């Protein structure tokens, strides 16, 4: 746990923004086809949409970079919010089944021919929200311990995954998206999916940022928060709605990207701050940069073949996560 003074957070913000900018630049320039600096300038600022390079930039690289940025930010912030609301550092959208809920909804949508647009975002949100409410109400009703909540999530993940697999088995058309979808992938990021998700994600991020103090008050415990005049039930549901909107929108674009919702909030807490006012924006910046960078690596390592980004994230993220856990083991953790 770290509690850095405001002025010491400056370099951390600078590093997070540098990571973000680097990931955008690499994402735009690197790939199977060479796109030079001049091509990027021409496409972005001179309205060039005809050359092959411009087409690659407009219809492949730009949506992918945007998808990486949005989904990374969304999942990292969603993870930080869910961890705060459930007072459980082990929780994240992929672990407690929120992503799986959204994933089932997206799979069902695909089975019914909905592959983009607002309806896809809406159903993904509903899938995510129903799952997160189920976990949250279950935890409250049965007074479940933090460990039990995680186990409930594991069970829900298995169940929702099984239903998704059943759908993909019986509707062969859907199975095309199934394997890449399960580990998370931006190869199918298109504007038709991206635009509604982008609106949902940006609005949710902005709104959550204004509620950062309320998130911290919740961590004082149910009774103390009530003693401070907070309507804790309503506030919890509000936070979970936004966490589900973020996770749902991310899943509708990228599939079941795991790990980022757990790794990024932990890393930011360990390195920078636990105060939500800074935790949420830093998670958004780092999550966006990390996922976009991983996606670029996924595209170029075996170019022209691509790996799903989820694989790269696990390769890079798991050792890094273990490193920060071991390095910070002397620290205090409420997990």
């Amino acid at each position, binding site marked *: *746990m770290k*509690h850095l*003074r405001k002025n010491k957070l400056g370099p951390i913000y600078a590093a997070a923004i540098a990571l973000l900018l680097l990931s955008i630049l690499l994402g735009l320039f690197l790939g199977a086809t060479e796109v030079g600096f001049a091509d990027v300038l021409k496409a972005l600022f001179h309205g060039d949409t005809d050359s092959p390079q411009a087409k690659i930039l407009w219809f492949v690289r730009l949506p992918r970079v945007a998808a990486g940025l949005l989904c990374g930010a969304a999942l990292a912030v969603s993870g930080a919010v869910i961890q705060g609301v459930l*007072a459980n550092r082990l929780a994240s959208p992929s672990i407690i089944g929120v992503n799986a809920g959204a994933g089932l909804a997206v799979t069902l949508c695909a089975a019914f021919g909905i592959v983009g647009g607002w309806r896809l975002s809406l159903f993904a949100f509903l899938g995510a929200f129903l799952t997160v409410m189920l976990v949250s109400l279950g935890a409250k009703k049965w007074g479940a311990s933090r460990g039990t909540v995680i186990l409930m999530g594991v069970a829900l993940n298995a169940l929702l995954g099984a239903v998704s697999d059943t759908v993909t088995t019986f509707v062969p058309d859907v199975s095309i998206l199934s394997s890449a979808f399960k580990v998370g992938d931006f190869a199918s990021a298109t504007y038709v999916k991206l635009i509604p998700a982008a609106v949902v994600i940006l609005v949710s991020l902005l709104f959550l940022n*204004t*509620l950062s*103090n*309320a998130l*911290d*008050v919740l*961590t*004082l*415990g149910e*009774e*103390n928060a*009530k*003693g*401070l*005049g*907070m*309507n804790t039930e309503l506030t919890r549901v509000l936070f979970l709605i936004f966490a589900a909107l973020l996770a749902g929108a991310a899943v509708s674009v990228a599939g079941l990207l795991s790990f980022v919702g757990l790794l990024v909030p932990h890393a930011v*807490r360990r390195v920078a701050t*636990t*105060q939500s006012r800074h935790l949420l924006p830093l998670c958004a910046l780092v999550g966006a940069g990390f996922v976009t960078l991983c996606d670029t690596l996924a595209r170029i390592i075996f170019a022209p073949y691509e790996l799903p980004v989820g694989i790269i994230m696990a390769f890079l993220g798991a050792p890094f996560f273990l490193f920060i856990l071991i390095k910070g083991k002397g620290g*205090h953790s*409420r997990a």
Partner: protein
Amino acid sequence: MLELKNVSAGYGKTEILHDLSIGFGKNRLTSIIGPNGCGKSTLLKAALGMLPHTQGEISIDHVSLSALNRKAIAKQVAYLAQGRDTPDMTVEQMVLHGRFPHISYPRQYASRDREIAASAMDQAGVLEFAHKPVCALSGGMRQSAYIAMALAQETDYILLDEPTTYLDISHQLDVLRLLRSLADDGRGIVAVMHDLPLAFRFSDRVAVMDKGRIFAHGTPEEICVSGLVEQIFGVQLRREGEEYFYKY
């Protein structure tokens, strides 16, 4: 006056408090004593409106609790629960959250809130730890930090559930001296206490509870000579000057 008249309350269908009446005045430190499970914590929660009462009337300075929302109640009565998780934040951040009922959406703290928080930390003796994580403080200092948060709430009444439990004796004394000084400054302090000699030594009033009812409410001396302590706890208290001792 924070007043409960003929109040019955409980959890679900289980009634814990039965037809209970008591008033907590300002400028006064009231200790609530009673055996485990007698409804002391429930009484505090009912008085705050956190637990709905099924019968009776609760009022804060003659305004019915039912006419106030949670935020309005939190501007008048602060509450420190027992058995808290240690929050993962600095003392200053936590104390600043005492201003939460006073700010509206988007609920950001202003420089005035920071000034009030700093003065609350000063009063509770934790200003020097402002930038330390709450979890790095000793139990006694942690309790003082919580009291600073309640002070930042700027309420007339502060209700504390077992504020001295788990503290060593010198920290218990520190906390009670602090509560005593807050009462002397004009606040109404109500504390659920288990340490009878300490409760009797520092309080202006002692309320004795058993089985969801108030058995007696009076000055420590009145309660001490009434024989109720022996009847309910099975121990005797004796007074020597201002001090109270268990008599075995």
